[in-house]
């Protein structure tokens, strides 16, 4: 179990205008608990404090206040020498890979083992073993400059895992990779999380990364955690504006352009259509909701936008519909009663180019 409790990081910065020193809070009272074996994501826009936060876990940055516990060890109170030992139990991977350019892939993976005092023969066996786990056994003799981005990150992952850590920290590990490579590296991280049972904490600015592999997520904004919970919950009922904005990277729920200039009212009016956004997840996603309401009520349904995906193996989706007809209210009530998250966007006069 990893526990961050009340972490703050304050820098003294010089004010541009007045030339006076003031405190800048990179992190403000951040508390996060991560269960053993979980993949925990921290998402935020650039400058939100993600990098600082992940570096506070292995003390590459020392928090100004607050405490960090990793499996019962308080990292924040360790003296330098013992901290180095503790760091050997925490693997870390980076956006820019940070491989030693003058060592081969083999030499890079061997590096943490040399630091931990392993013998030559043991190092050789372990490097081969871990290289085959991450799928780069054929590349061990190559220098990083001759490897592709995905291969470099695999070497980085092998290096991070070589000394059998309990925790893997990932600092935007896929941000420099193309979408296809990102997917395969994320799946590798999930595989080793399952195979080795190690806890993963990752930071990212891409909701897609969270969606692919994270069990839980914390949303960081201006150094504060504004929202955290299971990934599915954050995806289906985001509370904060910043979360919704980040979600819009993966969920296309925008209304068609013809609706952009229309006025929505919250109260029903004669001849106006009802626009709804419905989020669903789990078993409900398999239910034929749309045909149900059409059959049960005197309404017409027009789908304006829809997105369906999976979070780990749970289906989830968002759909934006336009209801017209006499029994809109009944249909709305029916939807509200189901295990769905239905949000009323508003009533709107039919745009002429939609009704024909």
């Amino acid at each position: 179990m990893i526990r961050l409790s009340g972490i703050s990081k304050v820098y003294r910065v010089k004010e541009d205008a007045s030339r006076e020193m003031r405190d800048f809070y990179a992190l403000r009272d951040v508390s996060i608990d991560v269960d053993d074996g979980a993949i925990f994501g921290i998402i935020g826009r650039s400058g939100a404090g993600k990098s600082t936060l992940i570096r506070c876990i292995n003390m590459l940055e020392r928090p100004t206040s607050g405490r960090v516990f990793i499996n019962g060890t308080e990292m924040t109170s360790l003296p330098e020498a013992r901290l180095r030992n503790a760091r050997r139990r925490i693997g870390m991977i980076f956006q820019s890979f940070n491989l030693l350019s003058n060592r081969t892939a083999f030499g890079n993976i061997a590096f943490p083992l040399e630091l931990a005092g392993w013998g030559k023969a043991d190092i050789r066996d372990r490097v081969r073993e871990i290289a085959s786990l991450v799928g780069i056994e054929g590349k061990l003799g190559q220098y990083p400059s001759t490897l592709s981005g995905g291969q470099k990150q695999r070497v980085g992952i092998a290096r991070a895992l070589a000394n059998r850590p309990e925790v893997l920290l990932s600092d935007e590990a896929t941000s420099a990779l193309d979408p296809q490579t990102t997917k395969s590296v994320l799946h590798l991280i999930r595989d080793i999380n399952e195979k080795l049972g190690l806890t993963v904490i990752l930071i990212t600015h891409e909701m897609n990364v969270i969606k692919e592999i994270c069990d839980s997520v914390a949303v960081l904004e201006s150094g504060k955690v504004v929202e955290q919970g299971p990934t599915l919950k954050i995806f289906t009922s985001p509370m904060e504006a910043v979360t919704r904005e980040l979600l819009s990277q993966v969920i296309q729920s925008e209304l068609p352009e013809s609706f952009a200039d229309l006025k929505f009212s919250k109260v029903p009016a004669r001849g106006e259509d009802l626009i709804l956004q419905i989020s669903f997840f789990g078993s409900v996603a398999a239910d034929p909701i749309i045909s149900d309401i059409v059959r049960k009520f005197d309404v017409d349904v027009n789908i304006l936008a829809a997105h369906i995906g999976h979070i780990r193996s749970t289906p989830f989706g968002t759909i934006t519909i336009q209801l017209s007809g006499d029994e809109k209210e009944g249909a709305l009530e029916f939807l509200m009663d189901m295990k769905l998250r239905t949000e009323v966007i508003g009533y709107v006069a039919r745009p002429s180019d939609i009704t024909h």
Partner: protein
Amino acid sequence: MSRDLLTLLIRGTLDTLYMVGASSLIAIALGLPLGVTLYVASDVGILRNRPVYSVASFVVNIGRSTPFVILMIAIIPFTRWVVGTSIGINAAVVPLSVAAIPFVGRVVESSLREIDAGVIEAAQSMGASPVEIIRKVLLPEGLPGIISGSTLAVINLVGYSAMAGTIGGGGLGDIAVRYGYQRFMPDVMIATVVILVAMVQAVQLAGDKLSALARHDRKN
């Protein structure tokens, strides 16, 4: 050219090689730790230390800004204390080394500054101590740059050694002055210049080759 002159030139060449070789080794042996100190104590280093950096940097700047001819004469008491004399090729090695140490120091410092900070951070995240970072990250990663920089230092020393020759250091510079200049023997003068040029070319070629062998951070 007479046999005697030829012997003289060969002798002078060997003397120059000795002076340059010995002072290069000493300069690299002492300049390397100096450069590492400058880097690790600097604002971007792993053992940031303002006072150490300021003092080291100040001393290096004095060494670098003193013209070699002046330095050579100014440290004669020190030279005498070290080798017992201020004349001859052994005596010349002292000022040559003293002049090259700060140069190598700066060259090493700037090579280390080229290393991506992320690589050092990665080593720290794996629990590397400062000494391990210096031995296993900074020096191997900085090696190509250190070799190119040291090549420059050796080439400078070829030039300086000719100057040292003029105040009794021996070597090709000494021959050029005594025979080429004072006895009006242009053929000797030209011969020394040709040998010096060939020496510099050889050093540069060898340095480039070694640096390329040590460099793996780009595709070839």
